[in-house]
């Protein structure tokens, strides 16, 4: 009887053991599964952004104007000789006009509309007589230029004309160029789609934001770290600073729109770079205050006491001993703030406008890089190539910044350990 019972127990316990193992395996497996999810998401974002944007990213893209310049081209003489001395090698998707020495390809504008681009211009192409009708200077077509519309005919005296629009495709364009020997009028789009303006306005924004936020932040941190006593006011202040860092950016945008717009830009305006950077300064103030205060507190007390004992006043101690020693913290906070400014969009939509501009004046509204992406994506047609290319830039800078911050904090830790 006794034996039987123990046998039964062993069986049962084995069963329970197996069941528990199974459960454990599933539970542990679920943690593996879910934690791979966040890593996968990160990789997916990086892969997507790079695969879409890498081709668009080029020097011309970075330094180019956003708005294309329209050029009207006209000629005064038709092609006289059609000598085939062109050194053109046929490519897929390109259509060559043998009489002109030009090749065309299908493309899209920055807004995503179909357009024909010049994909090849022969060194001996019959375009020597082309002139810019506005300036009267010679117009030499270049690869990459977009042809909006062109009026073609056989000779200058001919009345029968053919108007070819750039959105009808490259094949049609090349066929018509082949047929006719005289360009009566042509509208070409040069450049466009570049981000130089947004880049510069981002730099302005960073500069102004740091200019506004650093003195205020460092001052606040010195007060909280050195002078403030632990009383109700200080505690309320700390709570308020904590609360500010939890406020979403769109609310900052609204506040900036309410408070700073009437002061710095006048009512009725949709903001400029200065109002935008004032708003951003409010957003990064908590970061700067906290990080700087932490580094002030990390300074050994004996250092400032030694300074005081040597006869320096409290103010002298603050500016000559405490601030230089807190420099890594200040630098860290400034870098974090820069990262925030580069990535911010919702607040700036309200306070610095959404218009993408080429000529940047700080007292006028213009989009930063993040707002540039937002404007590109919120239009009728989305431009993934350009927005992903801008994203690559932003990601690169932000990764660089966070890496620098990590290295800085590591070096500070080492220093403290050394002491």
């Amino acid at each position, binding site marked *: 009887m006794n034996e039987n019972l123990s046998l039964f127990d062993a069986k049962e316990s084995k069963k329970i053991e197996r069941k528990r193992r199974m459960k454990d395996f599933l539970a542990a497996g679920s943690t593996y599964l879910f934690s791979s999810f966040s890593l996968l998401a990160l990789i997916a974002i990086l892969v997507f952004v790079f695969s879409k944007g890498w081709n668009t990213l080029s020097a011309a893209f970075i330094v180019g104007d956003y708005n294309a310049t329209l050029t009207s081209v006209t000629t005064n003489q038709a092609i006289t000789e059609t000598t085939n001395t062109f050194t053109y090698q046929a490519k897929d998707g390109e259509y060559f006009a043998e009489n002109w020495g030009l090749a065309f390809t299908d493309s899209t504008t920055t807004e995503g509309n179909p357009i024909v681009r010049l994909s090849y211009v022969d060194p001996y192409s019959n375009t020597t007589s082309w002139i810019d009708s506005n300036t009267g200077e010679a117009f030499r077509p270049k690869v990459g230029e977009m042809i909006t519309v062109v009026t073609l005919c056989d000779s200058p005296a001919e009345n029968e004309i053919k108007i070819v629009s750039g959105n009808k495709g490259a094949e049609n364009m090349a066929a018509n160029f082949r047929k006719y020997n005289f360009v009566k009028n042509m509208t070409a789009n040069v450049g466009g789609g570049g981000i130089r303006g947004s880049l510069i306005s981002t730099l302005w924004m960073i500069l102004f934001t740091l200019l506004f936020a650093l003195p205020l932040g460092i001052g606040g941190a010195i007060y909280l770290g050195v002078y403030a006593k632990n009383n109700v006011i200080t505690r309320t202040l700390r709570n308020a600073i904590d609360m500010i860092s939890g406020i979403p950016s769109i609310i900052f945008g*609204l506040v900036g729109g309410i408070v700073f717009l009437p002061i710095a830009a006048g009512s009725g305006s949709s903001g400029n770079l200065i109002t935008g950077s004032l708003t951003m300064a409010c957003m990064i103030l908590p970061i700067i205050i906290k990080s700087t205060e932490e580094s002030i507190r990390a300074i050994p007390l004996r250092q400032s006491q030694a300074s005081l004992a040597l006869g320096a006043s409290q103010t002298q101690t603050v500016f000559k001993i405490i601030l230089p020693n807190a420099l890594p913290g200040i630098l860290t906070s400034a870098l974090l703030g820069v990262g925030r400014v580069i*990535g911010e969009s919702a607040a700036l939509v309200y306070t610095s406008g959404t218009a993408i501009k080429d000529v940047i004046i700080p007292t006028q509204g213009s989009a930063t890089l993040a707002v540039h*992406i937002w404007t590109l994506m919120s239009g009728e047609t989305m431009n993934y190539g350009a927005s*992903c290319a801008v994203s690559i830039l932003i990601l690169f800078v932000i990764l660089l910044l966070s890496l620098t911050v990590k290295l800085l904090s590591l070096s500070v830790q080492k220093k403290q350990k050394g002491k």
Partner: protein
Amino acid sequence: MVVLGFIIVRGLKPFFHSYRETLADGSLAEGTASFSYFWSGIRYNNRFDFETHHYLYGIGHLIVNSLILNLYTIILAVPTSVLTALFISKIAPKPLALILKSGVDLLSAIPSVIFGVFGMGVIVPLIRAWARAWGAKSASGVSLLSGAIVLTLMVIPTVISVSVTALDGVHKEQMEGSLALGASRTQTNFKICLRAAKSGIFAGIILGVGRALGEATAISMVCGSPIQGITWNPFAPTVTLTSEMLLAIGEAVPGSMNYDIRFSAGMVLMLLILMTNVILNDVKNHLSEVNPPPFFIARIGKVMKKGTLAVISSFRKSWQKHKAEKEKKQ
């Protein structure tokens, strides 16, 4: 506080200030925004009511949609981030945990516009394909679900990092005690560590919800822009408070009704975030403490009760004094 005051003043302006505007059909409108329709209406930019001279802007559906979107986000984000935090803190070998941790840090550094672009380029087509496979109707993939997924990606770094800190703080003796009692490693992790770090994890979730409620740019990209209505359908497009505030801001003229009503919506958003935080904090306190403080509403009720009682008693006292003086005089 000053900022809050500014928002309230500006947010209330559309209900008191009279706006003169030319409508799309050419007729001239002049009046204030309707306060009752503002809360109850389910169509954002409805019309101008010529009988009562009110602009009818409704945000009732926006509030509910924001909450629904957050509910979906919480459902997706909480298991993901808590399990990931557990993995990083307790299960993973050190190098793997380091990689994951820096990955999560990187994820939190990515600005929200890029999440929006990613959502448009990857998640929205995926949802579209999924909806087609299931035979569900979807507006080319811009939907509640895509918004929730993008929000999840944005929220999990916050929740994970706070939860990891909480899990790292679990006492070793507690875990060793569990192990000594014969519980397996996994049982200890799930039944002891998670329970011990409960309040920290909840704090992370509160932070994450705050971030999710305030997120605007990415949501306005991936959630679509239906004109009206509340939706529970994950494949249907939805519009939230924040995305409505950003919608067509480029065309809104500063100083017009269309521009100023956004500030009212912002005020409501702040109230919403505050209230959600308060409620979640209460829930957290109730879950984590043995003798939890009473719920916020109960606290408010108590304070109000105390206050009214005090006022009543002071009135009664002064009345009695008055009476006594009167009697003395007589």
